[in-house]
């Protein structure tokens, strides 16, 4: 019986891929031109804010170990103040302890690396605490305020204190 082969064995002439590649390159040039003309090199990032106000109702106390955290910026010096539950948190009557970390300026600028280390330490005590208060000096530039807020917020994947309330006190 004579069997017919579906695929003929034998050397094929190699197809010329150059026109295809040139077509791809041309398409990419067009796409590149389109992108450069319609877009901007500056991407924007948004930081959500909460502003404290004297008329606000006091928030319910946090159930975890760290009750509140405040970052204060006076000149280039940072201070981290936090309140930690020092007795059994399930007890009806408990006591709290206020701890303060002073972070002096480094080369005339706020020491953001030390702030990150201090906040990570606080976060390790109570990872469920998400709120922090930030009280910048009136003379602090927007750039420094945002840089400190970035540190308080923490990395995108594993945030430290993503709910930042900015100080509402006047003066």
């Amino acid at each position, binding site marked *: 019986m004579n069997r017919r082969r579906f695929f003929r064995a034998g050397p094929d002439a190699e197809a010329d*891929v*150059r026109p295809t*590649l*040139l077509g*791809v*390159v041309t398409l*990419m*040039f067009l*796409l*590149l031109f389109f*992108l*450069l003309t*319609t*877009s*901007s*090199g*500056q*991407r*924007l*990032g*948004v*930081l*959500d*804010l*909460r*502003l404290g*106000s004297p008329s606000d109702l006091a928030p319910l106390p946090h159930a975890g170990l760290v009750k509140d955290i405040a970052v204060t910026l006076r000149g280039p010096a940072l201070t981290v103040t936090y309140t930690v539950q020092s007795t059994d948190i399930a007890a009806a009557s408990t006591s709290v302890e206020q701890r303060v970390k002073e972070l002096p300026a480094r080369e005339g600028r706020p020491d953001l690396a030390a702030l990150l280390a201090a906040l990570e330490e606080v976060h390790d005590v109570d990872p469920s605490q998400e709120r922090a208060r930030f009280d*910048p*000096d*009136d*003379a*602090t*530039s*927007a*750039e420094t*305020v*945002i*840089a400190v*807020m*970035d540190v308080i*917020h923490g*990395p*995108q994947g594993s945030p430290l204190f993503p709910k930042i309330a*900015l100080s*509402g006190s*006047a003066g």
Partner: protein
Amino acid sequence: MRRRLFKPRPAALSDGLDVGALAPLVDMMTLLLVFLLRSYSTEAAPAPPEGRFELAGTVSEEARKNGAVVVLVSAEAVYIDGRRVIAVAYLPPELLVREVYDRLLLTRDKKRIEVHADRAIPWGVLKRVLHTARAAGFEELSLVAANTSSL
């Protein structure tokens, strides 16, 4: 007799355009495109009509949301949705800025405010604008900065 440097040859016989030479070009273009698509943005940042304006940098990757009132605070003035409202030099010492408040009341159909502030603006100025926005009934406030991973 003049000697020709480049001898014309039929295109089919040309070995100048080799596949091996085109492949790195395609790779390079692909990398460039991926880089541009990652770092470029289609939304242009608002800018004041006069003066220098430079946003502060942030590592936040959170994107802007639509339908927000854009408040721009430059070194010279405060602008709301592109209109100049008050010069920074004339801002009152109080937290509530009447001119900004009145203008914001006209945009109450929107619920969100985005504040674009020049990097050198002191917090004392920014604070007054933010508090006025809150007093005008805007609960959702956000600061907009330039992503540091962009160009």
